[in-house]
């Protein structure tokens, strides 16, 4: 057997990014390789009463990004991000007009869907929680689109002229990997030849900030927001909420070759596991994440020694950073001590369901440019996180095989393998 599903392979031919620090793939990569951070005090609402008052927000100018007033009024910010990222990816790949709509699908990952709009609309129809205004005319005409997040996948599908399989994959903070794995499977088993896939989240809103306050998962370093996200550093105190989207055009390799598309990278394998342990907690041994990494590598037919770079989950909670360090040692053996590992959450925060898609974009760009982005704000390494976490400065090196991992609420543990085109036999 050559691959999980016969001889088909999946390549990336287009990338679109909306991220803190800049809209567009170029700005995103520049920022990551400069080691700059985009975390700051929350400006989108008055956060003064919350424990954590910092986030990695996007200065998103929807009009400048080409959205109409009607689209801005109608779409939740998450959908706006997804659409803008999709446009860039479609243009980048030149796929429009070169794919068959019935053989083209869309899969979008999200953890929170239209939570920001639902939060706002709830405040309106409840008069800020004081009384319930039963009269339906108080409610937005777009309320149902916010209620079921598949409305976002529909908007992307119309844009991409997709009439194949379309939907949302939602697995909390692993959504961005799981959606790419699902899209990949659909190309491999012949359900589609082209998949427009990625993830979007824009839930920096009072209810989201409040629910992470309640479990003390977010950083309270309110006096120093730009260095607040400190993965693998002994002084870390939780993650910094972020927002963003990354979308990709994925194609069956032969389809891309026939139309002469530029190929960035190959999606070589992915796997997902559950810890069946806790909705929020992680078992310290990292067993399930290690198995997800191993399974993704087996699927890619690669060995641990092949891995040139690991894009860590690195959420900057003590629990995660240690769990993950254990998982790397368990799955990669001695190679774990040699391979560079970094967390871009140190710069762009943790955008929940979207972050793994943004991280996948960073992995594809690392392969493209032979540069590994750093872990910013890493000055006092946690002695229990004793691997090479590429502190503060990007590193040039040949990058042929990358593993990206994620860990999420619900107990989900996921891994994705990205390789340089033509690298894998």
């Amino acid at each position, binding site marked *: 057997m050559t691959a999980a599903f016969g001889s088909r392979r999946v390549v990336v031919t287009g990338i679109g990014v909306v991220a803190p620090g800049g809209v567009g793939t170029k700005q995103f990569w520049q920022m990551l390789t400069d080691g700059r951070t985009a975390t700051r005090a929350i400006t989108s609402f008055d956060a003064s009463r919350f424990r954590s008052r910092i986030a990695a927000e996007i200065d998103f100018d929807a009009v400048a990004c080409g959205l109409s007033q009607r689209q801005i009024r109608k779409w939740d910010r998450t959908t706006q991000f997804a659409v803008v990222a999709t446009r860039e990816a479609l243009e980048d790949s030149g796929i429009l007009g070169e794919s068959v709509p019935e053989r083209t699908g869309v899969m979008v990952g999200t953890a929170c869907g239209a939570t920001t709009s639902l939060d706002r609309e709830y405040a309106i129809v409840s008069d800020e929680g004081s009384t319930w205004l039963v009269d339906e005319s108080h409610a937005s005409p777009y309320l149902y689109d916010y209620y079921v997040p598949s409305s976002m996948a529909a908007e992307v599908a119309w844009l991409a002229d997709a009439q194949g399989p379309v939907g949302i994959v939602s697995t909390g903070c692993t959504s961005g990997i799981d959606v790419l794995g699902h899209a990949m499977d659909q190309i491999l088993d012949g359900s589609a030849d082209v998949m427009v896939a990625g993830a979007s989240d824009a839930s920096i809103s009072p209810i989201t900030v409040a629910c992470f306050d*309640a*479990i*003390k998962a977010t950083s*309270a370093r309110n006096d120093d927001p730009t260095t607040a996200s400190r993965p693998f550093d002994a002084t870390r105190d939780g993650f910094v909420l972020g927002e963003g989207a990354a979308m990709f055009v994925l194609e069956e390799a032969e389809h891309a070759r026939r139309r002469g598309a530029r190929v960035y990278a190959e999606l070589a394998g992915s796997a997902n596991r559950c810890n069946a342990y*806790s*909705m*929020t*907690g992680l078992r310290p041994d990292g067993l399930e994440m290690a198995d997800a990494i191993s399974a993704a590598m087996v699927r890619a037919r690669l060995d641990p020694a092949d891995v040139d770079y690991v894009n860590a989950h690195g959420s900057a909670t003590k629990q995660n950073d240690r769990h993950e360090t254990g998982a790397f040692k368990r799955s990669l053996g001695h190679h774990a001590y040699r391979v560079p590992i970094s967390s871009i959450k140190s710069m762009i925060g943790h955008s929940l369901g979207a972050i793994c898609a943004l991280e996948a974009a960073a992995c594809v760009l690392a392969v493209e440019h032979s540069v590994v982005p750093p872990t910013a704000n890493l000055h006092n390494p946690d002695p229990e996180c004793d691997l090479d976490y590429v502190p503060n400065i990007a590193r040039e090196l040949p990058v042929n095989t990358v593993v990206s991992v994620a860990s999420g609420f619900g107990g989900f543990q996921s891994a994705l393998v990205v390789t340089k085109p033509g690298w894998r036999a």
Partner: protein
Amino acid sequence: MGAFTITELVDTLRESAGEDEDITLDGDILTVTFEDLGYDSLALLNTVSRIERELGVRLPDGAITEANTPAELLDAVNNTLAETV
């Protein structure tokens, strides 16, 4: 304000996080670990935030992770109460 008691703590635990059917909270549980009582860190976070609201106090962030038993949590709550008075 009187001290926060084990009875009040057990009531709050039951309300905020439920109760494991196989474990009784009625005996002397002061020095039994929360883990053995069937409560994880999230259950304690939910319980402590209710205690904080009802008593109008705020426990230091480390207090929850450091309290492994009801006795230790009661100490933390009552020390904070004493400081606020």
